[in-house]
């Protein structure tokens, strides 16, 4: 599979938390090339079962979330401005004049209103959500034909290539996690596996890992690996708290994770000469791992994270090398020696 093409395709799907249906169906379509059995859990969570399952083997879940951060329409003013609130953690500092798409009966393009300099006192204020409005060029009457309260809003941005192996786009968190799982399955085709493998494509991670909570219960795995993104170092970030782009998957170590799985992942990487990084967290991980680890009787859980710059912005940056290295690590972890 062409990993760059896959990441670009996944990044350009639109699916904010709670509005994942079309993205989930599209992603399910890609997984159906690798998995012939699937289940839908709750609202739009997809579980894709990979390969022959053997009742003597443990069930391992590879989890990635489908949803991306975005906004939700809350009101249309008489002048036709669309008021919104956030879905997940959005940096309000970068909202002014940002192009967006409102996903109504049809997609409506708009621009987030920006207050010009003559009306601000020095330009250091950041819009509060109450003051965020979208300008669509349409009147209230025109808008009401196409959009309703509760429709979702995403950044209007294309995924583009930077130099080397790097890409920029929106929603790379966590579509590149999905891409690395796809690539891992591609590597595992026809191979003997240590585990029964299920892939959970979870919804609503950005609202507090809600999809993963019910999937963890329904699928009831023995081991779970949350394949998500984490902070890559860039100017303005603390080097001590970040991974580095291009240096491989970040294996999580945390009191809330299974030290056994962390060590096994490290061992796998070292044995196979796969570059990796360690991400130490002191408590919760803020990924779906937090839900698996305490599901039912408890699940041995770990995080494998792809380093990413500018998280939750329309200009997230990843290195394709990291997706490749993450896929190698996952595949080697699952493959029979």
């Amino acid at each position, binding site marked *: 599979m062409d990993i760059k093409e896959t990441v670009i395709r996944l990044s350009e799907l639109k699916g904010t938390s709670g509005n994942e249906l079309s993205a989930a169906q599209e992603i399910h379509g890609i997984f159906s090339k690798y998995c012939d059995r699937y289940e839908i859990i709750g609202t739009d969570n997809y579980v894709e079962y990979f390969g022959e399952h053997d009742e003597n083997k443990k069930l391992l879940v590879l989890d990635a979330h489908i949803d991306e951060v975005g906004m939700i329409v809350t009101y249309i*003013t008489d*002048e036709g401005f669309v*008021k919104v609130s956030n879905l997940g*953690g*959005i*940096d*309000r*500092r*970068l*909202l*002014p*004049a*940002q*192009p967006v798409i409102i996903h109504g009966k049809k997609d409506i*393009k*708009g*621009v987030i*209103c*920006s*207050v*010009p*300099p*003559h*009306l601000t006192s020095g*330009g*250091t*204020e*950041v819009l509060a959500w109450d003051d965020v409005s979208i*300008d*669509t*060029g*349409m009147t209230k009457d*025109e808008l009401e034909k196409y959009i309703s309260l509760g429709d979702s809003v995403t950044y*209007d941005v294309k995924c*583009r*290539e*930077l*130099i*080397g*192996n*790097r890409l*920029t786009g929106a929603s790379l968190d966590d579509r590149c996690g999905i891409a690395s799982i796809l690539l891992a399955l591609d590597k595992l085709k026809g191979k003997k596996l240590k585990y029964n493998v299920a892939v959970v494509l979870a919804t609503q991670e950005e609202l507090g890992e809600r999809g993963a909570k019910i999937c963890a219960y329904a699928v009831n795995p023995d081991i779970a690996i949350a394949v998500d993104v984490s*902070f890559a170092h*860039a*100017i*303005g*970030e*603390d080097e001590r*708290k970040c991974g580095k*782009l*291009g240096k491989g998957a970040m294996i999580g170590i945390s009191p809330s994770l299974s030290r056994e799985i962390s060590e096994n992942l490290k061992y796998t990487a070292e044995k196979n000469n796969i570059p990796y990084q360690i991400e130490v967290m002191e408590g919760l991980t*803020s990924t779906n791992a937090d839900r698996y680890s305490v599901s039912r009787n408890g699940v041995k859980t770990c995080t494998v994270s792809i380093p990413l*710059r*500018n*998280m*939750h*912005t*329309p*200009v997230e*940056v990843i290195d394709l090398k990291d997706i490749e290295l993450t896929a190698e690590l996952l595949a080697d972890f699952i493959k029979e020696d």
Partner: protein
Amino acid sequence: MKELLRELCLINGVSGDEKAVREVIINKIKDVCNDYRIDNLGNLICFIKGRKSGKKLMICAHMDEVGFIVKYINGDGTLSFGAVGGIDPSVVIGRQVKVGKINGIIGSTAVHNLSKEQREKAPSMDSLYIDIGAENKADAEKYVKLGDCAYFESEFAELGERRIKSKAIDDRAGCAMMIKLMHEELEYDTYFVFNVQEEIGLRGSTVSAFSVNPDFAIVLESTTASDIDGVSGARKVCQLGKGAVVGFMDRSTVYDKGLYNLAFDISEKNNIPCQTKTMVAGGNDSGAIHISRGGVRTIAVSVPCRYLHSPSSVIEMNDLESCYKLVKLMAERIPEL
């Protein structure tokens, strides 16, 4: 005019780097000019004979747009830059840019890693950098030189049925009106000047006004409209859909009263929507032109534009048409004053 505007807006031409814009314009106007030349700063000065000769009229617009210039390549391969022209950092953070032909982004510290205070404060321009995907300084130096210009990457999109969104509407809208007017049969001999370096202090028009030495000048521009949600009364300055903007005064010029009255007189007699500005804000090439040599009687006709100097400026096409009709009629009357 929309297609012409689209073509012009999508060309990159930061102040001091207008060549690409100028070349496209020359191609479009060379067959209708009796004479054209490029002066030492890069201004394009054209002369077209009309049916009659009257007093000397100059119509002008500026070719340059706001953008960035690379000032330093950091050790990690990111680029530090200066803003060329007045740009608010909140419309810079989180955007895609082009550095020459190379894709880049202007990122920011992930919102998760900002303190509560930092989240409420717009970033300073100095804290921002361009990421082209380079792994280090040597990698970046293969693609970028100090002094290279960078531009907003922005789609030219239609918003609803009446409006368009693009970068560089300021002042390719003026350029588009001029190009169209130059293809009409003119009543009077007219100089058409496409200026450089407006955004860094009216530099081009200072010298072109001197060399053309006109009796009258009409400056075609785009001006700030802030008729957005939550702004009322005079603070809107001017409004989209209310026609051409002819102000009595801005931060650079007190406009010629005769020409101001003539504009509204023509607009009334010909049913051309026309509005004035309700705040003394902004400025344009008029500031340099009206005090050139012994003084030039000057007026500016502007299209009202939301989110000026951002990658997502928005205008209403009807307003551009109104400006065009008004300027065409003014050009038939002014030389006989």
